[in-house]
Every structure is written in structure tokens, then in C-alpha cells.
């Protein structure tokens, strides 16, 4: 189960499991977002490399305008994966409560 929607402050909220079967849905949503936003991952349980690809692709598009996504509230496992993937260098990553 994967859900993606906009929150009250205009942030992108992802919940559930972002796996290869869900990344089309995620990419379609992200493609509809014109400008950089906060992405709240507090309800995201899992992300696969396909999910990372969605974030990476969106970030590339956004960075053309000089500003990128801000990933907040990711759980420890997802932060580990971000780290392995070198995402700290590419995204602004804010831990839960940070």
C-alpha cells in the first residue's frame, strides 16, 4: 500500500511502501509538482531503489531552477539507504524532529 498526496502546508506526503510496483504512481504525482517542496516521509515504511530513482529524477528537474526537495522525517532505515545512495550530497535531509 502506497499513498502520495499534498498536505495542508503544500508539502508532499508519502506513506506506506514505495516499491518498484508503486513508482509509476509516485513519478506521475511528482511530475505534476512544478516547484520544490518539502517531502514528508514520516509515514513511509519502505523505499526501494526504484523509489530512490523517482526522488532522484524529480530532484534533477527541480535543481534546474536552483532549488531542490527537502526530505523530512525519514525513518532510520530510509535514512541509511539515503546515506548509502549518497543522497546527503544531493538532498537536504532533515531527520525526524529536526
Amino acid at each position, binding site marked *: 500500500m502506497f499513498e502520495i498526496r499534498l498536505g495542508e502546508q503544500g508539502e508532499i506526503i508519502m506513506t506506506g511502501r514505495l516499491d518498484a510496483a508503486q513508482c509509476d504512481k509516485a513519478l506521475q504525482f511528482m511530475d505534476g509538482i512544478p516547484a520544490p517542496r518539502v517531502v514528508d516521509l514520516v509515514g513511509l515504511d*519502505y*523505499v526501494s531503489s526504484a523509489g530512490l530513482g523517482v526522488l532522484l529524477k524529480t530532484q534533477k528537474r527541480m535543481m534546474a531552477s536552483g532549488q531542490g526537495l527537502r526530505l523530512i522525517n525519514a525513518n532510520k532505515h530510509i535514512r541509511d*539507504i539515503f546515506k548509502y545512495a549518497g543522497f546527503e550530497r544531493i538532498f537536504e535531509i532533515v531527520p525526524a524532529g529536526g
Partner: protein
Amino acid sequence: MHPATTTSVGLRAEALLQILEVTRKLAAPFELAEVLAEIGEAARSVLRGERATVWLFEPEQGVLVLTGGPPGIPPIRANLSQGVLGLTARSRQVINVPDCKLEPLFDPAVDLDVDNDVRCMLSVPLVERAQLVGVLQVVDSENGVFTMEDERVAETLATQCVVFIQRERMSRSLAQAEKLDREIKLAREIQMSTLPSEMPRLADYDMAGQFCPADQTGGDTFDLVPLDERRLFLLLGDASGHGIGPALSATQMTGMLRVALRLGADLDAIFAQVNNQLVEDLPEEHFVTAFFGVLDTVTHTVDYHAAGQGPLLHFQAATGACRWLSPTTFPLGFMKFPEVDPPHQIELAPGDILGLITDGVFECENPAGTMFGTEGVEQVLRSRHEGSMSDLLARMLQAVHVFADGHPQGDDITIVLLARRGETAGRTTIQRYFPRSLDSLEGIFRFVGDFISARSLDAELHMPVCFIIEELFTNFMKYNAESTHDISLSLGHTPEQLTVRITAFDVDSFDVTHAPTVDTTKPLSERQAGGLGLHLVQQMADTLQYEYAERRSTITFTKLLEAG
């Protein structure tokens, strides 16, 4: 001694003392013949007669029987219409005949008048709780005739004697029952001794078998005999009937099988010959249902004949479904086979289980009269098929026990389980196939989650393990899209590590361990989404191996488990 003294019950003291003496003597354990002789002697003595005899009533035949004659002389039988004897039995009254010559009912044939010189007779019924036990007859009183007092003495003596006769009869039938019990127990022990004492070990296979005898009846048996390094003979039998017979039939069948195997006979020949021998040996109404099969651990097939034995269980790991197979022919021992049809065959895929189960399991009833059935077996399998077969077997027996809820076990229960293991042999390994589709991912995550929680492994493993599996699985889908074979996923663990093995069939080689490394320090503009996944797999797995053989790609990775 004062012969004239009478007691408060109106018996002369001497007679009472004699009766007490008889009672004392009879209190010691005796054979029935001795008891009867003792009673006869006591009656003759107390009643001062010439001779005395004790007839016993046989209720089944409705006759009185006189034993205790010289050895070799058969017992004398009298029906209840004959003589004073018959009248005593019918009326349950003491009959005092002062002059036998004048008594029209008197019949020398049964009334002890061998030499045709009996003068008088006292005939006394032996009765307990309104049931006729026998008749005591005393003839020729020293005093000329038997008096009314003699009648009362005789009645008192008779009351005492009945107790001892009944006691002897009861202990005799008890002893017979005990003897039968002992014999059944012995037959059971022989039956049990033919069962395999340990499970054969064969590569890629795990098996378990157990026989749980019911109290008295049943003729289950099983045998697992390795024929050579790759083949195993499987036997399950259930002989019909009650008592010792089925146990003997089951034992006989196992014996015949072993001799046939020693002689190198093949499956069809053994099946036909064992049947033909049973036809000759078994009583007409008896038969044996049996499964005769040969497992080939290289082709992973079981060739079998199921003579009235069914349903047979084939659990298919790929779908999680149970296939129930019917017997292939009628039970053994009915009639000779004119010719044996070719054996049927079951193919065992990795994770599949063959279950040979006797009807004691299916027909196990609970107090409400509902049967355990195939449904009960399936229920256990659904949650337990990935464990060891000995564990699954124990769970099945436990489920039957719980289901019966104290209802007595009516029949023998025998279960033989044979599982083809996944690619990684070992008890803590489970394996399942998943179709090449992204839709499989959800099932894979659940499969991994169940494995981790069922074995109380660190829940933190779930995410990285799923990440790696998803990456490898989707890679297999992407790079060998033309293959239609499902992808095998097996999970295993030791205290030190979790091992995951993913195998794709009919594919070209693609070594994930040599995938180009991704420089994650590059600026975003130079980063590509592709290749990142395998890079992360290499980072996250503690070990990663790739093997390719027979167009089969196998990737094995491990994650170390933290102690405690």
C-alpha cells in the same frame, strides 16, 4: 461335640461347623474343578449322603454340565427337561425325593443312578441373584431319607458354594481376557518393531514418520527403505479388522516387502506379488489398504501404486495448494491382479510435500461427531509447511489430539511426510516461487516479514532484506524478460546470519557482483538512476555471491545477525 445341639438358624452345630470349614477351604484359590470336587465332598459329608455331584449351568447352551469324571471321559450334558435335575433347575426349588423308584420324574440317566440302585435324593438349586448357576445333588442318606433339616443345611451350603463357583468363573474369564490382552500386546510389539527406527537421510529431502497405535485394534504400518543412493522405497499400510489379525497382516506385509527388496524386485512386481500372497493368506473378509512408492531424488518423482489407500496428500509449495489424490486401485488381498497397471507418478517441486496418512487421522471424531477430515490436515499445513517434517508431523498429531477433545482414538494413526527441500537444504530454510511480476512484490515482503517474525529475528532486518530482494528480483525480471519460469526465493538462517537465495531459471548469465560501481559522490547532474540499486545491494549485503549453471542464475546474500 453335641450332635443334637441346634443353632439359632435352626441348623445343627455340627453341620454349621462343617459348612464353615468348607467355606474356609474354598477361600483359598482353586481351579474350578477343585472347587466343584470340594463342594461335592462337603455336601456328601455334611448331609451324610453316599455320593454328591455338582452340575454347572451353561447359559449360552441352556444345558447343565457335569465334569470331574475320570480323565478322558467327556463331560455329561443334560437339558433342563430331564429328570429331577431338570425340575430343580427350572423351579429353583430344593427337591427331596424319598424314594426314587416311585418318583415318575426321576431319570437314571441324569439323576446319578449309574447302577440303578439309588434310593433317595436331595436335589438343590445353586442360584445367585435369581440366576441359575448349577444344581447340587446328594443321594442315599445314611439315615434312609433326607430330612427337612437336611434340606435347610443343603440350602445354606448351596448359598456358600455359589459364591465360590462364581468367583472361580469370573477369575477364569478375567485370566482369559488378560491372556488375550498379553497376546495383542505382543503382536503390537512385533508390529512396532518392524517400523523404521530412524529416518533415512537423502540429499534435498526431509522426512518424518510416526505410528500411533490405538488401544486394541488396527493394523497400520509404514516403512522407508533406501534402495540405493538416489532412490527410496515408501510403504504405508492399513490392515482391516480388529484384534490381533490386523497387526499380524501389517507385519506380514512389511516382511514380504523387505524380502522382495532384498531380491531386487521392482515396484510393480513387489506390488503384484505382495497382493497375490495376501489373497492366499488373508481370511476372506480381510484386506489391506496400502501405498507402495519409489522416490527418485534425482528426477524428484514418486512412482506409486495406492491400493485403496487414500486420499494422498500432495502439497504444492508454488501455489500453497493441497492436491488430494485418490487410490489407484482396490485394496490388497481382495483378488489377484490379472496384470498391474503402470504406476502413477507425482512430481515434487522444491518445497512440495507428499503426505501418506491413514484414515485414523481423517476419521478422527470429536465429541460432536465431526471428523477431522482433509480440512483439518490442510489447516495445519497452511501455517506449518515451511518447517521441518518432524515438526509438521508433531503439529498434525497435536491438532488431531486437540480436535478429538478427549474422544477416544478409535483406530491406529500413521503419518509419513516427505518434503523436497528448497535449493538450500536445512531445517530453518523456507522456499517459495514468485511469478515474474511487480505484483509479486507485496507477497515477497509478506513472505520475508513472516519468516522474520516467526523466527523472532531482528525486525530491523525486514527493510534492508526486502530492499535487496526487490532489487535482485526486479533485475531478473528486467534482464531476462523472455523467461516464463517463476523466480525461486529461499530464506534460511543460522544463529549468526540470515541467508537469502534467489534463483531464476532459463536465463542468461548476469553477474550482479560485477555490476559497474556507482560513484555516489558525483554531483546530481552526473548521477543516473540506473545501477544505483545494485550498488546499494553490494553496500547493504554482508556477503553477495553469484552462481550460474544450466541456464540458472542464483544469487545468494547474507545479513549478519546481532548476537542476543
